Each structure stands twice: as C-alpha cells, then as structure tokens.
C-alpha cells in the first residue's frame, strides 16, 4: 500500500445532541398517556426502561439509514384527510366467511365486531383482558419484542409494548373454521394508533389471520406470534391506505420445530411506511416465508416504503424465504433491508432472499441492503436484488397482439408481482388480492 498521509476531518461529538434526543423521547411519551396495565404491567415497565436506555433512533442510526425516523419520533401525529381508506373498490375480503374484529383508531370496537367465540380458538381484546393480573398471554406480551431487540435495537417496538392501548389476544388450540379478520378503521383525523396483538398457535394447531384497513393518521402496530411445534399460521395483511398515511409495524415470530409461518403483506399508497419482520427459528425442520408486494405512487406527494427483515436460524434444517417486490412510480422510494443470520450449529439451513423493484419512471428509486451472516458450514443461502424497468420485449409482444399500452403495463406489473403473491397459499385469498391489484393498476396505469 502506498504510504500516503490522509487527513481526516475530525467530527466533533454533538454534546448538545443527547439531551435533545431525550427531550424528544420525553415529548413522545408525554403525548401517549401510558396505560398502567394489569397482566402486562411488568412487561410495560420493562419496555419503558429499555426504551429509555436505547433512546429513539436518530438520523445517523445505521438501521435507519434509508428512512428518516423523524415522523415516527414526533410527539404528535399530523392530521390527515378522511378520504375513503378502502378506495373506490370497497373493503377487501368483504364476501369472505370470516370472524371480523374491528378496531377504530386502534381501539377494539365490540359492537362492530363479530362474536369472538369460535371453536378451536380463544380471542379477547387486550384492553379488556388487561384489567386482571393473570392471563395466558402474560408470558408472551413483550417477550418476543424484547428478544428481537438483539442484535439490532427496535425502539419503536419497545415504545409500542410500553404504550399499546389495545390489541387482540389470540390463542389457537385447534383449526378454527374461519379466518380471523382484523379490520382497521379510523374516526379521528389525527389518530395516533398504537396496538399490540398476540398470537399463540399451540402444537399442531392452524389459523389464518387477515388484516386490512387503515388504523390512524399515524400507526404503530406490533404482532407477536408464537408458533409451537407443528403449528401453522398464515398471515395476510392487505394495506391500502390513504396517500398521507404514516405507518410503522413490526411482526415478531418465534417458530418452533416443524412449525410453518407465512406472512404476506400487500401495501398500497401511504406517505411513509416501514414494516419490520423479525423471525427466529427455535426448533428444527420449521418453515418461515415472508413476502410483500408494494405499490407506490409519488404523484400525490411523497411515497416512501421500507421493509426491514431479520431472520435468525437457530435450529437445524429450517427453510426461510423472503420475497419482496416493489413497483414504484412518480418519484416513489422503496427500501429493503433483509438479513439472514445463521447461528453456529444451524446446519442444513435453507435461506433464500430476493428483493426486486420495478421502476416505472426514472425518478423513482430502490435502495436495497441484503445481508447474510453465517456461522454454520453446511447451509444453502442465497440472495438477489434487482432494479429494472418494464421489459421492452414483453411490452412489444403484448402490444403486437393488440393489447393497448396501458393494459400491457398492468399485465407486466402483475407478472412482476406474481412471485410475491404466490406466497399467499390460499387460492381464494390470492385471487381476491390479484383482482384488487388489477383494478388499482388499471386506474393508475395512465396517470
């Protein structure tokens, strides 16, 4: 190496920065009116102490490199318009036989919800159950969130555990005949909704959990999903939100031996959205798939969507699969941070990750940071990331058959998203999502 003197610029530590950050956290907490909690009280106190120790993320935080956390850190949510959140197509999954659980501004609405009794499953609202000191969920509340803080801090998830107003507690003991559908609505135009769901799927049990709608002007949602041996959980979230919406969500999953966890998110619109998925295999021969289809149009202002995934293989012969697809136009920004961590001894791990963006114009951008960290020697792990435009060859092929250009774009976008949608196991659900996507794309193709 050549001996060259390099002059480095000294960076003065910002002494004034620390108290300012503390003030911000203080202001954020003050605006929240923290519940004392019943069975969750200890977990809430613990989360608050952890949050104070880690602080809210700053703009220099590596994990927030591509997404500015300021909007999530701000003391209050900004008011946003009360446009019909479902859009012109109406609510999704409306004609499905399912058990509806409605939340308004993040608070359980018993009157709008179905009867929560269903064979093979126990359901309660967090706010109602939290009046007492004992509950099956006491061991779970905050435990996966807390475990998921290492090696990367997730302050907003700790904030959620401390501050969650409501949520649903689901214990699956059998095979309920209907999917559970969580429907989010909002009433207050500046609702700052914070909810926390717990899902425990007991050994050999199986359930489908659906989420749709928009819960607030700013949302902070956490799901802790605990899958026992041989359990199965299918999670499908379809989020078509208003253009101004700001949302943050975390899903923490602990997957025991031979269990199967599948999570798919469709995300349409929003100003600033970040979804973190934190999955850990704790038993052998388990499967976890996490996928997303994201459609972003920056036409109505800003669009920034961030998927941040962390999968830990802590057992042998587990299969993980991450499939993330983003369609971006009019200056939309997509972010993907995806990590596979293979612990020592997690032999025969099969880890796969793909993140792809389809840019419909030159102003949109995709920022991807795939990471593999492997400490076992007998594993198969692969990752790929691509960014591209519409395939001209395919476009010409379709048009040469008489398919008009706008319609051809819809076909090619659906084609691009197909791999992610394939992760929705149920044909009926997948079909409904596909139809919804097609309708949305057809409306937006020309704009």
């Amino acid at each position: 190496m050549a001996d060259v003197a390099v002059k480095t610029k000294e960076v003065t530590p910002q002494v004034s920065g620390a108290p300012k950050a503390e003030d911000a956290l203080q202001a954020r907490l003050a605006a929240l009116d923290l519940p004392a909690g019943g069975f969750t009280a200890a977990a809430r106190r613990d989360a608050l102490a952890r949050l104070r120790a880690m602080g809210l993320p700053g703009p220099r935080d590596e994990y927030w490199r591509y997404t500015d956390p300021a909007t999530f850190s701000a003391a209050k949510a900004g008011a946003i318009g009360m446009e019909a959140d479902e859009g012109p197509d109406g609510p999704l999954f409306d004609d499905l036989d399912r058990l509806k659980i409605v939340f308004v501004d993040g608070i359980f609405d018993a009157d709008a919800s179905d009867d929560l009794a269903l064979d093979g499953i126990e359901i309660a609202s967090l706010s109602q159950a939290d009046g007492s000191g004992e509950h099956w969920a006491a061991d779970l509340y905050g435990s996966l969130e807390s475990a998921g803080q290492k090696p990367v801090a997730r302050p907003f998830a700790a904030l959620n555990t401390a501050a969650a107003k409501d949520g649903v507690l689901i214990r699956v003991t059998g095979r309920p005949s209907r999917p559970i559908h969580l429907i989010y609505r909002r009433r207050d135009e500046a609702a700052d909704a914070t909810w926390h769901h717990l899902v425990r799927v007991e050994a050999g049990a199986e359930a489908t959990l659906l989420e749709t709608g928009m819960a607030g002007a700013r949302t902070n949602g956490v799901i802790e999903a605990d899958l026992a041996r041989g359990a199965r959980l299918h999670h499908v979230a379809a989020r078509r939100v208003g253009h101004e919406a700001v949302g943050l969500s975390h899903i923490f999953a602990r997957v025991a031996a031979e269990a199967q966890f599948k999570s798919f998110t469709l995300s349409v619109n929003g100003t600033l959205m970040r979804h973190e998925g934190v999955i850990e295999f704790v038993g052998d021969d388990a499967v976890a798939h996490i996928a997303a289809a994201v459609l972003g149009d920056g036409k109505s202002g800003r669009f920034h969507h961030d998927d941040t995934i962390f999968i830990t293989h802590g057992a042998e012969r587990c299969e993980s699969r991450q499939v993330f697809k983003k369609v971006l136009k009019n200056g939309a920004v997509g972010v993907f941070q995806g990590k596979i961590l293979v612990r020592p001894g997690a032999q025969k791990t099969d880890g796969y990750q793909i993140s792809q963006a389809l840019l419909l114009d030159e102003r949109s951008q995709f920022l991807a940071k795939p990471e593999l960290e492997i400490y076992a020697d007998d594993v198969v792990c692969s990752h790929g990331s691509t960014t591209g435009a519409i395939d001209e060859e395919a476009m010409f092929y379709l048009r040469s058959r008489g398919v008009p250009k706008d319609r051809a774009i819809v076909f090619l976008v659906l084609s691009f998203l197909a791999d992610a949608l394939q992760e929705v196991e149920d044909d009926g659900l997948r079909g409904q999502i596909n139809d919804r996507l097609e309708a949305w794309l057809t409306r937006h193709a020309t704009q």
Partner: protein
Amino acid sequence: MLKIDNLHVKLEEEDKQILKGLSLEVPAGQVHAIMGPNGSGKSTLSYVLSGRDGYEVTDGSASLDGADLLDMEPEERAAAGLFLAFQYPVEIPGVGNMTFLRTAVNAQRKARGEEEMTSGEFLKAIREKARELQIDAEMLKRPVNVGFSGGEKKRNEILQMAMLAPRMCIMDETDSGLDVDAMRLVADGVNALRSPDRSFLVITHYQRLLNHIQPDMVHIMSKGRIVKSGGPDLALQVEEDGYGDLLAEAG
C-alpha cells in the same frame, strides 16, 4: 393487401442502415416467402412492419389495405389486421395464457368497433382451435409461454393467430428450433388458416418449411433489399446451390 414501397430503415441508436429501398407487394390470399442470408434484414422488416421501437424509417412507405402502417402504434396495427408470429415468443410469468389472449381479442374488437366476446364464447372458440392444434387445455391455463417447449411456444403463436384472425400474417423464422413433427403441426395450423382474404409473409432461412407451406412467390433478400423474386422453384434453387450464386447473379 400489404404494400411496401422503397422502404429505408436505420437503427435509431446508431447510424446503421438496415433496409435500403425494399419494395414488396403481397396480394390478398397469397403466401409469399422471404429468404436470405443472415444479416440481410429479414427480421428487421418484420419488426418495422409490426411497430417495434428502436427503428427509424428514413424513406418509403408500408401500408395494409391502403392504411399507412408506419403511422400506427403496434396495437393499432394489430387491430388493423397485422399479426407477427415471433421467432422467440416471450414468456410472461404470472399472466394466464387465456386472460392474455382474451384481452387481446377483445381489445382488437373494441378498437374496430365490434362487440366484445363473452367469456363463454371465447372459451368455446379457444377450446376448438386448441384441439385442432393439439394444444393441451392445461397449457391454456398456464402463464404465457412459461415452461413451454420450443414446439409448444410456436403452436401457441399459431393459436393466437387463429383466435385473432388477422388479415396479414408475418411469420418470423417460425421453423427455427422445431423438429420435423413440430414443424408439420405448425404448418398444418397455418394451412388451415389460409383463405382468399388472408395473406402470409413467411420469413425463413431454409426451404424445408416451404415444403409444408406452399408459397405463391419467393423473394430473395440481401443487404436490405429484395434482389430476386420468383415462384416456389426459387426456394429449391437456394436449397441446392446456396445463396452465393443467386446473389452474385443479382449483383
């Protein structure tokens, strides 16, 4: 039906002239073949006629039934009755063959001011045509050309041709990559579509396809021009002697 006059075409991105004054006329009901060595501009001709991006017409004209083709978008040319069977049909994962074809058929009908086909009518028609072409019903449900063999892709092109019922079909090296049986099946499909008001322009390297699809005229293309035209015998002459003598003779 198809009239090409003194067509000059260069690549848009670079200063390279590909077609240098090509003239050709295909009357209604006729099959014309274009043969020629690699690089003579055969595929470019098919792309320019069907409206692919990347080419610039610097002179000349091309019309279908009197309508100026070069002025139209690719989908407008299709609605006007032009069809290009691709040398390499494109795979489109996630889009069902049936959905795609029904959209294409109805888009063309709509563009021509005709009534759209109902799904029942469409299903009936496509099943019938698929059977004739020995295309498995399962294949219709699969994504467009995904996982199709070379022969299946070409048969799928002919199926599309049959469903879209174009006036003018251009076939770009449809025989490439096909074994004898597959080629015969494709040729049978094409022959079944021959009619007094439908014409074909068959672009091929080899004479063998023309044993199955009998042309009315054969044109030899070289360096962006038609250098010799004649009856079916001309193709046999190419097969026996190669292009060398013919081109030398044409100067």
